[in-house]
């Protein structure tokens, strides 16, 4: 365990015009690509396997193992798709990374595509972030001009075309199979599995889908080796990663640290909860992960640690809320998000989120009883694990966990006949030192 930051992905973010190829190359950028092209693709897959890199998109699936699933005897083309749809509330790591250093991602794409023997790769970016799309497009153009992309890359005989594709603004298109449908020009809704994307993904061909951060981590592993990567983090959650702190913290932003750091340590680095306030609750990995409280400040933020605390590491999006925040209100806002983003394919999520929002809205107004809380919990029980994809599961997390930790606050709404909080006080423009 270490309590210091380990900037690797974010190391160059403060460089002059860090997003340019020149700047990136000055810092040794694209050296890893040359190393990788000198290796056998299979050896690269082994290297990533050995490093212990786990997917940074939320589920933490071992990246090298995912690459190993690609059937190399399948006659269809292979595809690499980078998931840059980043839409989970609180999650804001991929977009800063692509803003500050798009070439880290592009280099990662080339090495990863080479490893899985794909000649076509796609970066699927959420459509709202036009500035990021432009930076990516420019970076890809630069990479082509420098010969990092295109035909016979640096004389290796390896060809790769990379396309930056803008989504149209749907959270569900971050779900990997919905993303594939969207990329193929259809309406994004999750696909039935099996077949899994590794066998029949994009255009029914073998496809690897990885998160931006997962792919961006690959060049550093090639450069520094698997054991370097494994020296950071914990036994089963290796390496460094980006933690995104937002909300009631003094210095919100990206903190790149080894997996297993605690929120207490991160808050220290970030100057603590906003002045004059104390931590009330937080999400470890975006709104789809059950909330935790001040009692979890020392939980190691790795897959196992957060799991043992009853939540999930998710996207490491740490949304921090102090005591001015009404948990019922926060949960209602999140639930409205899920209702809005439910793709509509399956019954539990489509109808469930519609119902949950109405129930919560009523409770927020103080029009409810404790029996409603039981109904809410039962509704969640009927959604969690019954939906078609994990969006529905995620929608239940804030509700069940908030009732678990803050049942009294819900009850207070009924007794008070409305919300006992002053919402203005939780805003960032509230006067310092204001209390609930």
């Amino acid at each position, binding site marked *: 365990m270490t309590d210091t930051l380990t900037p690797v992905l974010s190391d160059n973010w403060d460089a002059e015009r860090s997003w340019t190829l020149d700047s990136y190359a000055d810092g040794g950028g694209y050296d890893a690509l040359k190393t990788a092209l000198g290796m056998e693709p299979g050896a690269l897959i082994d290297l990533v396997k050995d490093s212990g890199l786990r997917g940074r998109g939320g589920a933490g699936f071992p990246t090298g193992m995912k690459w190993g699933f690609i059937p190399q005897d399948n006659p269809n083309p292979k595809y690499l798709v980078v998931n840059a749809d980043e839409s989970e509330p609180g999650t804001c790591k991929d977009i800063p990374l692509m803003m500050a250093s798009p070439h880290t991602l592009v280099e990662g794409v080339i090495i990863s595509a080479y490893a899985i023997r794909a000649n076509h790769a796609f970066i699927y970016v959420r459509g709202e972030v036009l500035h990021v799309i432009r930076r990516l497009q420019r970076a890809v153009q630069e990479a082509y001009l420098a010969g990092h992309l295109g035909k016979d890359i640096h004389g290796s005989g390896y060809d790769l075309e990379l396309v930056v594709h803008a989504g149209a603004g749907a959270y569900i298109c971050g779900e990997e199979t919905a993303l594939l449908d969207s990329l193929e020009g259809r309406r994004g809704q999750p696909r039935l599995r099996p077949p899994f994307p590794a066998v029949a993904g994009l255009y029914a061909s073998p496809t690897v889908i990885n998160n931006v951060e997962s792919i961006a981590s690959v060049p550093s592993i090639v450069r520094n080796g698997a054991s370097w990567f494994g020296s950071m983090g914990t036994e089963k959650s290796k390496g460094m990663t980006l933690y995104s702190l937002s909300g009631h913290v003094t210095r919100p932003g990206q903190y790149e640290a080894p997996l297993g750091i605690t929120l207490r340590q991160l808050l220290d680095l970030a100057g603590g909860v906003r002045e004059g306030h104390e931590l009330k609750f937080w999400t470890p990995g975006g709104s789809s992960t059950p909330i935790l409280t001040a009692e979890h400040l020392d939980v190691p933020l790795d897959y196992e640690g957060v799991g043992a605390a009853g939540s999930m590491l998710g996207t490491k999006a740490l949304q921090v809320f102090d005591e001015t925040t009404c948990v019922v209100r926060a949960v209602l806002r999140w639930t409205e998000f899920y*209702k809005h983003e439910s793709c509509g*394919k399956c019954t539990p999520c*489509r109808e469930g989120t519609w119902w949950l929002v109405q129930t919560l809205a009523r409770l927020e107004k103080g029009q409810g009883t404790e029996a409603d809380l039981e109904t809410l919990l039962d509704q969640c029980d009927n959604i969690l*694990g019954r939906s078609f994809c994990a969006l529905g599961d995620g929608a239940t997390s804030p509700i069940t966990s908030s009732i678990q930790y803050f049942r009294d606050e819900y009850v207070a709404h009924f007794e008070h006949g409305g919300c006992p909080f002053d919402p203005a006080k939780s805003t960032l423009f509230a006067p310092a030192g204001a209390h609930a």
Partner: protein
Amino acid sequence: MTVTSKEGQEVAKADLVTLTIDGVEVSVPKGTLVIRAAEQIGVQIPRFCDHPLLAPVGACRQCLVEVALPGPDGEPRTMMGPPGRVKPQASCTLTASEGMVVNTQISSPIADKAQQGVMEALLINHPLDCPVCDKGGECPLQNQAMSNGRGETRFVETKRTFPKPINISAQVLLDRERCVLCARCTRFSEQIAGDPFIALIERGALQQVGIYEKEPFESYFSGNTIQICPVGALTSAAYRFRARPFDLVSTPSVAEHDACGSAIRVDHRRGKVVRRLSGEDPAVNEEWITDKDRFGFTYARQDDRLTHPMVRDEETGELRTASWPEAFVVAARGLQAAGATGVLTGGRLTLEDAYAYSKFARVALGTNDVDFRARAHSAEEEAFLASTVAGTGLGVTFEDLEKVGTVVLAGLEPEDEAGTLFLRLRKAARKGLKVVSIAPFTSRGLAKMHGTLIRTAPGDEAAALEALAHDGEVALDAGGILLIGERLAAVPGALSAAAALAGTTGARLAWVPRRAGDRGAVDAGLLPSLLPGGRPVDDAAARVDLGTVWGTTVGHEPGRDAAGIVAAAIAGEIGGLVVGGVDPDDTADPAATRAAIGAASFVVSLELRATDVTQAADVVLPVAAAAEKAGTFVTWEGRQRPFGKVLVESHALPDLRVLAGIADELGTPLGFKTVEAARAELSELGGWDGDRVAAPTVSTGSTTRESSTTDGDGLRLATWKQMIDDASMLDGDDYLRATGRAAVALVSAGTLAGLGVEAGANVTVTGPGGSATLPVGVADLADGVVWLPAGSDGINVNRDLGATAGATVSVEGGAA
């Protein structure tokens, strides 16, 4: 052990997996879905999106069950997730595997609760309008809410509503708030019909079935979506609010609109058909029917329906109502007086009725002048039918189409002319069948079958068929099937070439006529040279064979065909005509047919509704419509499709009873008066195993005609009837008719340029008998060919142009 799969084939043990469902061990063929494995032990897992003929989606989540799979130690491990929770699985997407343990709602409280949860969720936004909903009483949502749902809702909030209903076509209406978003309708349209004009749009609880603004839901099969909709979200304009299902009597029957013999269910009330649904018959139509078979049934109760016999009053010269006995007597006397008489029938008779006409002509009238072909026909065709079709029994079947590699269509447009056949071909094509079509252009139907066009101008089909024998690409062999449309009768040499091609390649051949009674008419001997069962008139042994059952002798001279009968009547060689269900406009020469009816001294007309023929007839005898009698249709496959009387209260007489009445008066009884008795005699007669007529060997004639003209003159006419058109059997079904495809004249881009008009502009097509004006469109036709629908939007090509397929016509821009 062995089990029998749905197709009735024995499955070897190696292809089975054994699993345990609710404690019961069951073996099912590999690949079987858990939901269907459960059906085998009598467990009904509730479901909405699942449909056995559609690809699974797993969308509704109603079918969740608890599943355990054997681990490495062989012990079953329950499928879990999210952490620590049992994760019930959708049984409609999960294939059964060896050692799997499934616990459904019956034995798993977790599965039961999951299902109840989904049901409750489905109902929160569902309106409570069951009392006025068409589906009420036969609704899977209602039923399963009772069996797998909670008694009371906990939802006290606001339901989602939509303005209701919206037309997704002229015939199909959508009440969005009733929709459970199971995607059955959209999957049917895309996967089965190939008409993806509806799709799910929007998201979340606002997801809904939508149409493309500029593309109406135009499909010949749209009614199937109404039937498979598990709620009352899709309704038909024709049936909406007309009945409660429990007030209807349902009778299985067979559709009368084409030669496919689709199983249907007829729902009726107080002697009136209220709606028709698809029946289930895996061998024939599976669970689908055409919109024509579904919605086309009010023709039998139009105002012009004939209800009483009529005879021409000797004094006034007008038709007047008569009693049956009087009408029989007048008909018999008139025919006796008229002398030589010919018999013309259409192609809509049941096998039993056709048999009655066949026997009536030979026994009561003593003539072989009988022909069912109220359309273009030829002696070559007759030889073809006699040699290859008549009395051959079940040949190529619907199911065979899924087992072969190549199907060649010639002179046949399945989507328009045999919709059920089209669906089966499309199904097979989606699994790899190669469809090749000898046709003038790539029709929408051919494109949907992913078919290959052998571009052929009408008249050149014979040459195209001959060329196929040497076509390495199509490579027709014994693993192929040739489907020949009746239109080839008008192309000299085409049917000969088809028979020869089948002979040289070993490919199997089937003749696919348009009408439900065509094949039965061939089998019953409604042809001048053919007796029932394929017995040649000029074969003494065949005549003796028949004579023993009929107890009389039969004339040995082949008679006149339909054109011959018409000509003879005009020439005065024939005095009497017995006409059963012929529309002069369907015949190759409508004017001649009308003239013959006018010239004949005595005309007996057996008809459903008033027509030009009944108006000119001396005796008019009303007959029963399909729903008012029992009978048998013989499909293009040669499959007998018997059906019972649906409207049991009806007193309408089938043709055979009417003919028996006249025959009695003529002193030459037919020997049967009921459908059952006619059937019994047909089976007593049995098949014919003697010599058959040889297949025709008419040569193709000289080379194919060259016509690549792109100015408007001397164009070759291609034409066939669209499925939903001006046919009188669609009279009264206005919503259905509104879904028909508009009449458009199609030409090649080159020809269009030569005409100097834009697509969509009006052109006038002129034939020997007149002209018609309609919009023009472009298709991949050869230059110098124009295609017209034979009977759409008020234009009847035979009647208005005096032309049939292959004729030379001219086209010019603008109205006439």
